Protein backbone atom coordinates (compact mmCIF):
# COMPACT_ATOMS: atom_id res chain seq x y z
CA UNK A 1 0.00 0.00 0.00
CA UNK A 2 1.07 3.63 -0.38
CA UNK A 3 3.98 4.91 1.66
CA UNK A 4 4.48 7.62 4.28
CA UNK A 5 2.66 5.72 7.02
CA UNK A 6 5.10 7.00 9.60
CA UNK A 7 5.36 10.58 8.32
CA UNK A 8 3.97 13.34 10.52
CA UNK A 9 1.48 15.95 9.42
CA UNK A 10 2.60 19.56 9.20
CA UNK A 11 0.56 21.81 11.45
CA UNK A 12 0.17 25.57 11.35
CA UNK A 13 -1.55 27.06 14.36
CA UNK A 14 -3.77 30.15 14.21
CA UNK A 15 -5.78 31.91 16.89
CA UNK A 16 -8.84 29.75 16.64
CA UNK A 17 -7.89 26.89 14.36
CA UNK A 18 -5.12 24.72 13.03
CA UNK A 19 -4.38 23.94 9.42
CA UNK A 20 -3.03 20.43 9.12
CA UNK A 21 -1.46 19.04 6.01
CA UNK A 22 -1.35 15.29 6.45
CA UNK A 23 1.36 13.26 4.76
CA UNK A 24 0.02 12.18 1.41
CA UNK A 25 -0.21 8.43 1.82
CA UNK A 26 -1.76 7.99 -1.60
CA UNK A 27 0.95 9.76 -3.62
CA UNK A 28 2.35 6.53 -5.01
CA UNK A 29 -0.98 5.68 -6.59
CA UNK A 30 -0.86 8.71 -8.91
CA UNK A 31 1.05 8.66 -12.15
CA UNK A 32 0.76 9.86 -15.69
CA UNK A 33 -0.90 7.38 -17.98
CA UNK A 34 1.58 5.14 -19.73
CA UNK A 35 -1.18 3.94 -22.01
CA UNK A 36 -3.58 6.69 -23.15
CA UNK A 37 -5.96 4.00 -24.39
CA UNK A 38 -6.38 2.72 -20.85
CA UNK A 39 -9.98 3.34 -19.87
CA UNK A 40 -10.72 2.38 -16.26
CA UNK A 41 -14.22 3.87 -16.39
CA UNK A 42 -15.02 1.85 -19.51
CA UNK A 43 -13.64 -1.28 -17.85
CA UNK A 44 -15.82 -0.71 -14.80
CA UNK A 45 -18.89 -0.10 -16.96
CA UNK A 46 -18.26 -3.34 -18.82
CA UNK A 47 -17.85 -5.18 -15.53
CA UNK A 48 -21.15 -3.72 -14.33
CA UNK A 49 -22.82 -4.74 -17.58
CA UNK A 50 -21.73 -8.33 -16.95
CA UNK A 51 -23.40 -8.13 -13.55
CA UNK A 52 -26.59 -6.61 -14.90
CA UNK A 53 -28.17 -10.01 -15.57
CA UNK A 54 -28.82 -10.16 -11.84
CA UNK A 55 -30.44 -6.75 -11.53
CA UNK A 56 -34.05 -7.76 -12.22
CA UNK A 57 -33.86 -10.39 -9.46
CA UNK A 58 -32.35 -7.83 -7.10
CA UNK A 59 -35.07 -5.33 -7.92
CA UNK A 60 -37.74 -7.95 -7.26
CA UNK A 61 -36.12 -8.67 -3.90
CA UNK A 62 -36.13 -4.97 -3.00
CA UNK A 63 -39.81 -4.73 -3.96
CA UNK A 64 -40.61 -7.72 -1.78
CA UNK A 65 -38.77 -6.09 1.09
CA UNK A 66 -40.84 -2.94 0.64
CA UNK A 67 -44.02 -4.99 0.47
CA UNK A 68 -43.07 -6.88 3.65
CA UNK A 69 -42.26 -3.63 5.47
CA UNK A 70 -45.67 -2.28 4.47
CA UNK A 71 -47.27 -5.50 5.78
CA UNK A 72 -45.45 -5.19 9.12
CA UNK A 73 -46.55 -1.61 9.43
CA UNK A 74 -50.18 -2.49 8.83
CA UNK A 75 -50.03 -5.44 11.21
CA UNK A 76 -48.21 -3.70 14.06
CA UNK A 77 -48.89 -0.02 13.49
CA UNK A 78 -46.30 2.73 13.45
CA UNK A 79 -43.36 2.16 15.79
CA UNK A 80 -39.75 3.27 15.44
CA UNK A 81 -38.96 -0.18 14.01
CA UNK A 82 -41.76 -0.37 11.42
CA UNK A 83 -41.24 3.27 10.46
CA UNK A 84 -37.51 2.72 9.97
CA UNK A 85 -37.97 -0.52 8.03
CA UNK A 86 -40.42 1.06 5.60
CA UNK A 87 -38.29 4.15 5.12
CA UNK A 88 -35.12 2.14 4.65
CA UNK A 89 -36.73 -0.14 2.05
CA UNK A 90 -38.08 2.85 0.11
CA UNK A 91 -34.80 4.72 0.44
CA UNK A 92 -32.77 1.81 -0.92
CA UNK A 93 -35.06 1.55 -3.93
CA UNK A 94 -34.73 5.28 -4.52
CA UNK A 95 -30.95 4.92 -4.61
CA UNK A 96 -30.71 1.68 -6.57
CA UNK A 97 -33.56 1.61 -9.07
CA UNK A 98 -31.83 3.61 -11.80
CA UNK A 99 -28.65 1.55 -11.46
CA UNK A 100 -30.73 -1.63 -11.75
CA UNK A 101 -32.36 -0.35 -14.96
CA UNK A 102 -35.64 0.89 -13.49
CA UNK A 103 -35.27 4.68 -13.68
CA UNK A 104 -39.00 5.34 -13.55
CA UNK A 105 -39.23 3.86 -10.06
CA UNK A 106 -36.84 6.38 -8.50
CA UNK A 107 -39.29 9.28 -8.25
CA UNK A 108 -42.05 7.07 -6.85
CA UNK A 109 -39.74 5.79 -4.12
CA UNK A 110 -38.54 9.33 -3.45
CA UNK A 111 -42.11 10.51 -2.95
CA UNK A 112 -42.72 7.68 -0.47
CA UNK A 113 -39.49 8.59 1.37
CA UNK A 114 -40.64 12.19 1.68
CA UNK A 115 -44.03 11.12 3.03
CA UNK A 116 -42.44 8.89 5.67
CA UNK A 117 -39.60 11.22 6.62
CA UNK A 118 -41.35 14.57 6.72
CA UNK A 119 -44.68 13.80 8.36
CA UNK A 120 -44.17 15.25 11.84
CA UNK A 121 -46.40 12.74 13.62
CA UNK A 122 -45.74 9.29 12.17
CA UNK A 123 -49.07 8.02 13.48
CA UNK A 124 -50.75 10.40 11.05
CA UNK A 125 -49.04 9.09 7.93
CA UNK A 126 -51.97 8.03 5.72
CA UNK A 127 -51.74 4.26 5.26
CA UNK A 128 -53.77 4.51 2.06
CA UNK A 129 -51.15 6.80 0.55
CA UNK A 130 -48.37 4.44 1.65
CA UNK A 131 -50.29 1.60 -0.01
CA UNK A 132 -50.65 3.52 -3.24
CA UNK A 133 -46.93 4.27 -3.37
CA UNK A 134 -45.91 0.69 -2.64
CA UNK A 135 -48.37 -0.69 -5.17
CA UNK A 136 -47.19 1.82 -7.78
CA UNK A 137 -43.53 0.89 -7.26
CA UNK A 138 -44.31 -2.81 -7.60
CA UNK A 139 -46.53 -2.26 -10.65
CA UNK A 140 -43.94 -0.19 -12.50
CA UNK A 141 -41.27 -2.80 -11.80
CA UNK A 142 -43.58 -5.62 -12.84
CA UNK A 143 -44.63 -3.88 -16.06
CA UNK A 144 -41.21 -2.44 -16.87
CA UNK A 145 -41.07 -4.13 -20.29
CA UNK A 146 -44.15 -2.33 -21.57
CA UNK A 147 -43.48 0.14 -24.34
CA UNK A 148 -45.58 2.81 -22.62
CA UNK A 149 -44.15 2.31 -19.12
CA UNK A 150 -42.53 5.77 -19.12
CA UNK A 151 -45.90 7.44 -19.70
CA UNK A 152 -47.70 5.30 -17.14
CA UNK A 153 -44.99 5.79 -14.51
CA UNK A 154 -44.92 9.54 -15.10
CA UNK A 155 -48.69 9.80 -14.64
CA UNK A 156 -48.59 7.72 -11.45
CA UNK A 157 -45.67 9.69 -10.08
CA UNK A 158 -47.23 13.06 -10.83
CA UNK A 159 -50.46 12.18 -9.06
CA UNK A 160 -48.83 10.61 -6.02
CA UNK A 161 -46.37 13.47 -5.65
CA UNK A 162 -49.16 16.00 -5.90
CA UNK A 163 -51.16 14.33 -3.14
CA UNK A 164 -48.05 13.77 -1.00
CA UNK A 165 -46.81 17.34 -1.29
CA UNK A 166 -50.27 18.68 -0.48
CA UNK A 167 -50.41 16.45 2.58
CA UNK A 168 -46.91 17.48 3.72
CA UNK A 169 -47.73 21.17 3.27
CA UNK A 170 -50.74 20.70 5.50
CA UNK A 171 -48.99 18.49 8.06
CA UNK A 172 -46.11 20.97 8.38
CA UNK A 173 -48.16 24.15 8.32
CA UNK A 174 -47.10 24.95 11.90
CA UNK A 175 -43.40 24.83 11.02
CA UNK A 176 -42.86 26.92 7.90
CA UNK A 177 -39.06 26.88 8.18
CA UNK A 178 -39.00 23.10 8.05
CA UNK A 179 -41.42 23.16 5.12
CA UNK A 180 -39.17 25.61 3.26
CA UNK A 181 -36.22 23.30 3.87
CA UNK A 182 -37.90 20.18 2.51
CA UNK A 183 -39.30 22.05 -0.49
CA UNK A 184 -35.89 23.29 -1.57
CA UNK A 185 -34.65 21.53 -4.71
CA UNK A 186 -32.13 18.75 -4.08
CA UNK A 187 -28.51 19.44 -4.92
CA UNK A 188 -27.19 18.09 -8.18
CA UNK A 189 -24.33 15.90 -6.96
Amino acid at each position, binding site marked *: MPNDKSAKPSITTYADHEVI*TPPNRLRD*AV*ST*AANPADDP*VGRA*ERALALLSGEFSGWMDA*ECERLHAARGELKAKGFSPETHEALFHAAHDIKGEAATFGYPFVTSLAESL*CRLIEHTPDTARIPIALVDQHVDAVRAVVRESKRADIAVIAAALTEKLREVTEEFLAHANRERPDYLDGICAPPL*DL
Partner: protein
Amino acid sequence: MVRIDFNKLRFLVIDDNAHMRRILRTLLHGFGAREVYEAEDGAAGLEAFTHFMPDIVLTDWAMPIFDGLELAQMIRQPGANANPYAPIIMLTGHSEKKRVVAARDAGITEFMAKPISAKSLYQRILNVVANPRPFIKTKTYFGPDRRRNVNSNYVGPERRKGGKADVIRQSPLLDKAKVAG
Protein backbone atom coordinates in the same frame (compact mmCIF):
# COMPACT_ATOMS: atom_id res chain seq x y z
CA MET B 1 -3.14 12.64 -18.27
CA VAL B 2 -3.42 11.48 -14.69
CA ARG B 3 -3.72 7.82 -13.95
CA ILE B 4 -4.51 6.13 -10.67
CA ASP B 5 -2.95 2.80 -9.91
CA PHE B 6 -5.91 1.27 -8.19
CA ASN B 7 -3.95 -1.83 -7.36
CA LYS B 8 -1.95 0.31 -4.92
CA LEU B 9 -5.05 1.35 -3.02
CA ARG B 10 -6.97 -0.48 -0.32
CA PHE B 11 -10.71 0.21 -0.16
CA LEU B 12 -13.30 -0.35 2.54
CA VAL B 13 -16.95 -0.42 1.40
CA ILE B 14 -19.54 -0.04 4.17
CA ASP B 15 -23.17 -0.48 3.19
CA ASP B 16 -25.93 -2.55 4.75
CA ASN B 17 -27.35 -3.33 1.32
CA ALA B 18 -25.63 -6.38 -0.17
CA HIS B 19 -26.62 -5.40 -3.71
CA MET B 20 -24.95 -2.02 -3.41
CA ARG B 21 -21.81 -3.57 -1.92
CA ARG B 22 -21.64 -5.95 -4.88
CA ILE B 23 -22.01 -3.08 -7.35
CA LEU B 24 -19.31 -1.03 -5.65
CA ARG B 25 -16.97 -3.99 -5.48
CA THR B 26 -17.57 -4.66 -9.18
CA LEU B 27 -16.83 -1.05 -10.11
CA LEU B 28 -13.68 -0.91 -7.95
CA HIS B 29 -12.37 -4.16 -9.39
CA GLY B 30 -13.22 -2.80 -12.84
CA PHE B 31 -11.06 0.25 -12.11
CA GLY B 32 -8.25 -2.13 -11.22
CA ALA B 33 -8.48 -2.34 -7.42
CA ARG B 34 -7.45 -5.62 -5.90
CA GLU B 35 -8.00 -4.99 -2.21
CA VAL B 36 -11.63 -4.27 -1.45
CA TYR B 37 -13.00 -5.05 2.00
CA GLU B 38 -16.63 -4.90 3.00
CA ALA B 39 -18.68 -4.26 6.12
CA GLU B 40 -22.45 -4.25 6.49
CA ASP B 41 -23.03 -1.72 9.24
CA GLY B 42 -21.33 1.17 10.95
CA ALA B 43 -19.96 -0.86 13.86
CA ALA B 44 -18.49 -3.55 11.62
CA GLY B 45 -17.22 -0.73 9.41
CA LEU B 46 -15.31 0.89 12.25
CA GLU B 47 -13.84 -2.45 13.25
CA ALA B 48 -12.81 -3.13 9.64
CA PHE B 49 -11.34 0.37 9.40
CA THR B 50 -9.13 -0.30 12.41
CA HIS B 51 -8.20 -3.79 11.27
CA PHE B 52 -7.58 -3.30 7.54
CA MET B 53 -6.40 0.34 7.61
CA PRO B 54 -7.94 1.20 4.22
CA ASP B 55 -6.65 4.07 2.10
CA ILE B 56 -10.16 5.12 1.10
CA VAL B 57 -13.51 4.52 2.80
CA LEU B 58 -16.76 4.37 0.83
CA THR B 59 -19.77 4.47 3.10
CA ASP B 60 -23.53 4.63 2.94
CA TRP B 61 -25.40 7.06 5.20
CA ALA B 62 -28.37 5.07 6.53
CA MET B 63 -27.15 1.93 8.29
CA PRO B 64 -27.93 -0.02 11.46
CA ILE B 65 -26.11 0.31 14.80
CA PHE B 66 -24.53 3.59 13.83
CA ASP B 67 -24.84 5.35 10.55
CA GLY B 68 -22.33 6.71 8.07
CA LEU B 69 -22.33 10.13 9.69
CA GLU B 70 -21.52 8.72 13.12
CA LEU B 71 -18.90 6.49 11.56
CA ALA B 72 -17.22 9.51 9.97
CA GLN B 73 -17.22 11.33 13.30
CA MET B 74 -15.55 8.34 14.94
CA ILE B 75 -12.89 8.11 12.25
CA ARG B 76 -12.24 11.86 12.52
CA GLN B 77 -10.94 11.62 16.07
CA PRO B 78 -7.32 12.75 16.19
CA GLY B 79 -5.34 10.19 18.12
CA ALA B 80 -8.17 7.68 18.34
CA ASN B 81 -7.10 5.60 15.36
CA ALA B 82 -4.21 5.12 12.97
CA ASN B 83 -5.50 7.36 10.22
CA PRO B 84 -8.04 10.07 11.10
CA TYR B 85 -7.19 11.69 7.75
CA ALA B 86 -8.47 8.79 5.62
CA PRO B 87 -10.60 10.03 2.72
CA ILE B 88 -14.26 9.19 3.27
CA ILE B 89 -16.60 9.14 0.29
CA MET B 90 -20.27 9.06 1.24
CA LEU B 91 -22.64 7.45 -1.24
CA THR B 92 -26.25 8.02 -0.36
CA GLY B 93 -29.77 8.43 -1.62
CA HIS B 94 -29.97 11.69 0.31
CA SER B 95 -29.30 14.78 -1.77
CA GLU B 96 -31.09 17.49 0.24
CA LYS B 97 -28.91 20.48 1.04
CA LYS B 98 -29.21 20.05 4.81
CA ARG B 99 -27.98 16.47 4.46
CA VAL B 100 -25.00 17.50 2.37
CA VAL B 101 -24.10 20.18 4.92
CA ALA B 102 -24.42 17.69 7.78
CA ALA B 103 -22.14 15.23 5.96
CA ARG B 104 -19.59 17.96 5.28
CA ASP B 105 -19.65 19.00 8.96
CA ALA B 106 -19.07 15.38 10.02
CA GLY B 107 -15.81 15.35 8.07
CA ILE B 108 -16.88 13.60 4.87
CA THR B 109 -14.34 14.18 2.09
CA GLU B 110 -16.61 13.65 -0.90
CA PHE B 111 -20.38 13.31 -1.19
CA MET B 112 -22.02 11.33 -3.95
CA ALA B 113 -25.77 11.05 -4.46
CA LYS B 114 -27.13 7.77 -5.77
CA PRO B 115 -27.70 6.52 -8.39
CA ILE B 116 -24.01 6.01 -8.80
CA SER B 117 -22.15 5.62 -12.05
CA ALA B 118 -18.67 4.41 -12.87
CA LYS B 119 -17.70 7.87 -14.07
CA SER B 120 -18.91 9.75 -10.99
CA LEU B 121 -17.29 7.26 -8.61
CA TYR B 122 -14.01 7.42 -10.52
CA GLN B 123 -14.10 11.22 -10.37
CA ARG B 124 -14.57 11.23 -6.59
CA ILE B 125 -11.70 8.80 -6.11
CA LEU B 126 -9.49 10.83 -8.45
CA ASN B 127 -10.28 13.93 -6.38
CA VAL B 128 -9.31 12.43 -3.04
CA VAL B 129 -6.16 10.78 -4.39
CA ALA B 130 -4.79 13.48 -6.68
CA ASN B 131 -6.16 16.59 -5.04
CA PRO B 132 -6.11 16.17 -1.26
CA ARG B 133 -7.35 19.05 0.88
CA PRO B 134 -5.67 20.19 4.07
CA PHE B 135 -7.42 19.44 7.35
CA ILE B 136 -8.85 22.07 9.66
CA LYS B 137 -9.06 21.62 13.40
CA THR B 138 -11.18 23.92 15.52
CA LYS B 139 -13.00 23.49 18.84
CA THR B 140 -15.98 22.07 17.01
CA TYR B 141 -14.61 20.58 13.80
CA PHE B 142 -11.90 18.27 12.62
CA GLY B 143 -11.91 17.27 8.98
CA PRO B 144 -11.06 18.26 5.43
CA ASP B 145 -11.09 21.98 4.69
CA ARG B 146 -14.73 22.78 4.01
CA ARG B 147 -13.72 25.70 1.80
CA ARG B 148 -13.05 24.11 -1.52
CA ASN B 149 -12.77 27.42 -3.33
CA VAL B 150 -11.93 31.01 -2.57
CA ASN B 151 -15.09 32.99 -3.22
CA SER B 152 -14.04 36.46 -4.38
CA ASN B 153 -17.66 37.61 -4.13
CA TYR B 154 -17.97 36.70 -0.45
CA VAL B 155 -19.23 39.62 1.61
CA GLY B 156 -19.01 39.42 5.39
CA PRO B 157 -16.61 39.03 8.25
CA GLU B 158 -13.75 36.55 8.07
CA ARG B 159 -14.83 33.73 10.35
CA ARG B 160 -11.42 32.19 10.84
CA LYS B 161 -9.23 34.29 13.06
CA GLY B 162 -5.59 34.91 13.56
CA GLY B 163 -3.20 35.24 10.76
CA LYS B 164 -2.17 36.24 7.36
CA ALA B 165 -3.33 33.06 5.75
CA ASP B 166 -6.17 30.85 6.84
CA VAL B 167 -5.47 28.02 4.49
CA ILE B 168 -2.19 26.58 3.37
CA ARG B 169 -2.68 25.56 -0.20
CA GLN B 170 -1.30 22.17 -0.97
CA SER B 171 -0.04 21.90 -4.50
CA PRO B 172 -2.43 19.41 -6.07
CA LEU B 173 -0.82 16.23 -7.28
CA LEU B 174 -3.11 16.57 -10.27
CA ASP B 175 -1.21 19.71 -11.34
CA LYS B 176 2.14 18.15 -10.59
CA ALA B 177 1.26 15.19 -12.72
CA LYS B 178 0.16 17.46 -15.56
CA VAL B 179 3.51 19.24 -15.47
CA ALA B 180 5.37 15.97 -15.32
CA GLY B 181 3.30 14.56 -18.19
